[in-house]
């Protein structure tokens, strides 16, 4: 069952607090969070979060198209090393 609209998106309060603090300081830093269940809000765009995957913090640069997703979706808990073959990486 989906979440009631009147409740708004769920975000752990300390994530909001950390993000606010980082934005105010204006420093280029990775905000370490353990809350994988929190929703990505528009005010997080442009910040870099280190989302814990049970072992380490995976850096996630928040972009507009991530809004509404959960942080945990970008921090997989299992690692897979495939073959490089002809796969490409784009520097954004």
């Amino acid at each position, binding site marked *: 069952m989906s979440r009631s609209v009147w409740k708004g998106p769920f975000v752990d309060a300390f994530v909001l607090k950390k993000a606010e603090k980082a934005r105010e300081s204006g420093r*280029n830093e990775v905000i370490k969070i353990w809350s994988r269940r929190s929703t990505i809000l528009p005010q997080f765009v442009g910040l870099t979060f*280190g989302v814990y995957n049970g072992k380490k913090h995976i*850096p996630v*640069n928040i972009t507009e198209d991530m809004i509404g997703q959960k942080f945990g979706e970008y921090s997989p808990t299992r690692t897979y090393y495939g*073959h*490089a073959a*002809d*796969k490409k990486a*784009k520097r954004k």
Partner: protein
Amino acid sequence: MTDRICVGAITGSFGVKGEARVKSFCAEPAAIGDYGPLTTKDGQTSYSLTITRPVKGGFAVRLSGVKTKEQADALRGTTLHAPREALPALPDDEFYHADLIGLTAVETGGEELGQVHAVHNHGGGDLLELRQKGRTGTALVPFTQGIVPTVDLASGRIVIDPPEGLLDDA
């Protein structure tokens, strides 16, 4: 930079008419047929590959010089390598994983950080996995203009300007 890139592997025979079953490691699996003759890991044997049909877990292919099921079965486990030059040129700011892996990462100050071990993408952009010098474990670095301002394939190094706390985790 490696001169030959592993693009697939032979996983056995397909049918009884000498076709082989090939697993593709390419981003677009059918692209394995586009890179011309493929060689074995040691580069001694070369095969021209023609895809006949897609099958479960890969493609059924016809390999030059392989005429019987027994010959195809004997090749099970053989990896297929394409020459690096066969891959098409990419626009600026786009790189093959194979080119990035193995590059030396240095900080903006010139201090060596380690080597690129792998490239990941978990949906939030590409990440370089660095094996840090003098430390156990690895660190992940977002592959962005801000954090990786310079990629110099010719000299085999990348320059990293890590934000605070990025490399602490390893």
